[in-house]
């Protein structure tokens, strides 16, 4: 993994703000995952699965955010749309899965 990211090509810094928004989202996933894992290890083992999913999604998004930033920079330079639906769909699916599994644990246990 190259440590240095390309400089933002847009003077409005939209690409960098979007990168930071992905990073904050990754941190939110990891923070929620940590809270769920803490609860799983103290008194609700059923929360282990959503906890691991949250942590794993956070870690994956932190790495993907960098690739996404490079992709956005490239798209801006060549003047193409920087949209990536699969990434949006995957992040939504992960958040929904964590929410649903926590809901099931609270309603059943």
């Amino acid at each position, binding site marked *: 993994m190259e440590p240095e990211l390309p400089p933002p090509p*847009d003077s*409005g810094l*939209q*690409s960098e*703000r*979007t990168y930071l*928004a*992905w990073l*904050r*989202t990754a941190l*939110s*996933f990891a*923070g*929620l995952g940590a*809270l*769920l894992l*803490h*609860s799983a290890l*103290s*008194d*609700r083992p059923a*929360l282990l699965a959503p906890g691991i999913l949250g942590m794993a999604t956070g870690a994956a998004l932190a790495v993907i955010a960098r690739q996404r930033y490079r992709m*956005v920079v490239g*798209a*801006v330079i060549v*003047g*193409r*749309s*920087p*949209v990536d*639906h699969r990434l*949006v*769909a995957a*992040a*939504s*699916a992960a*958040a*929904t899965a*964590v*929410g*649903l599994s*926590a*809901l099931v644990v*609270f*309603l059943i246990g």
Partner: protein
Amino acid sequence: MNQLAHLRELLAARQERRSPLDSVGTEPDYRFSLANERTYLAWVRTALALLAGGVAVVQLVPNFWVDWARELLGVILVVLATAIAATSYARWQRRERAMRVGGPLPASLLPWVTGVGLAVVSLLALAFILIDIARGEG
């Protein structure tokens, strides 16, 4: 004949609604797409924060006198969070599509739902706390 043309138009419109995002309209200004993406991410983080709040109120907050209080607050928060997360992709896509065809951005009930949901949770929490105080356990 007129009716047939009308039917054709309807079918074409339906086809357009169904077609994948990148074949509709023209590519919008990248700044708009990135703003849409950041708004989507802000909704996802809102869902994750509500989820963390729901888990925390069930797992970490001490019990209220009303012994189902934590579960009720937690379930409302987690349901709200899951609803936001589950609809977030469709919301992002509808807006991207509207940008591509140059139409107005679609209206959304979600800010209202989120605000009302949070108001209900806050009022319930206040009620549970006041009950505890009134019973001298607060």
